[in-house]
């Protein structure tokens, strides 16, 4: 005679309670951290893809102004591409033939903005997000064109650091 095989008794209709205390702990910690890091400034600036901003020790929060960005590939007015950047320089097709610092498409966009948004345009403020590796010559063209269009107050956007 063979031995009788041992069988684990399993109750088919068994119910159990899941212990979610540790999960609640984790969520509480995450919630506190996220609430703390939630951006509560008056102006939120969205980082532009492809731009590595330089670090600065400045403690000033962003203010409202016209948003310009220069990445290693394009110059944007808000979300609109106004000129291409080639070899870290503004594409010659966008530069005025008589003035090597004048970016015609950017000037036109700023002039249009001046007419449509008088209140913000009156502040004369530009928020410039530029890639940290770009040379001053490229930034200078943007600064020059912006000041010609009535935006002489340049605010350089940086990341917080030491």
């Amino acid at each position, binding site marked *: 005679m063979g031995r009788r095989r041992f069988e684990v008794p399993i109750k088919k209709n068994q119910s159990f309670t899941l212990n979610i205390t540790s999960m609640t702990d984790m969520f509480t910690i995450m919630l506190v951290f996220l609430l703390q*890091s939630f951006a509560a400034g008056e102006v939120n600036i969205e980082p532009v893809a492809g731009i590595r901003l*330089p670090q*600065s020790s*400045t403690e*000033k929060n962003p203010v409202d102004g016209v948003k310009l960005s220069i990445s290693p590939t394009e110059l944007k007015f808000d979300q609109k591409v106004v000129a291409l950047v080639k070899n870290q320089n503004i594409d010659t097709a966008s530069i005025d033939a008589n003035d090597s610092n004048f970016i015609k498409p950017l000037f036109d966009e700023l002039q249009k903005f001046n007419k449509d948004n008088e209140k913000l345009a009156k502040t004369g403020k530009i928020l410039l997000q530029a890639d940290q590796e770009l*040379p*001053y*010559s490229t930034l*200078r063209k943007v600064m020059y064109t912006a*000041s010609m269009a009535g935006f002489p107050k340049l605010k350089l956007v940086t990341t917080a650091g030491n």
Partner: protein
Amino acid sequence: MGRRFKLNINHNSEFELDLAPLLAVMVKLVPVLLVSSAFVQMMIIETELPQVVQQAIEEQKNNPKAPQISVEVHKNEGVKIVINDNGSEKVEVVGLNTDKAIDYPTLHAKFVEVKKAYPQVFKIDFNPDADVAYKDLVKIMDEARKVRAKDVRFPIKDIKTGQDTSTDYMFPEIQFSNMMDG
């Protein structure tokens, strides 16, 4: 007499707190905050200054005889601080370090030295070369803006009240003076 009803309380009883609704709220809140959170804190470089410093800058602008300090940045030579005081010109040079980069600690020390000599000056003219990288410009502006040492402060006079006070600002007003050059 009827017997008084006594509520039977078991002091050693245990109960489980139902955390499911709390968890449901958190599960909804966490993704919302994750999506809207800014993990990179962005700041701007601007000259928002104490009133006393603002007054001093205004006075410097209105005074044509005030000493002029300009900072030239050359990629291969380093930084030149040119001080023009009443016709006499003095040049301070901070060269590159062994890694062929700008020697920022030395530059900061030089700015402190210049500020000690000219505490009334808050504005500098910035003249970088065309090939200087933007990140280097930002670093130089950082070095010039405020003194890092906590125990060093510069004397300043409140023009309105006539009282002597002090500030840790060195050269917060930076003007790109070669911006209009061709």
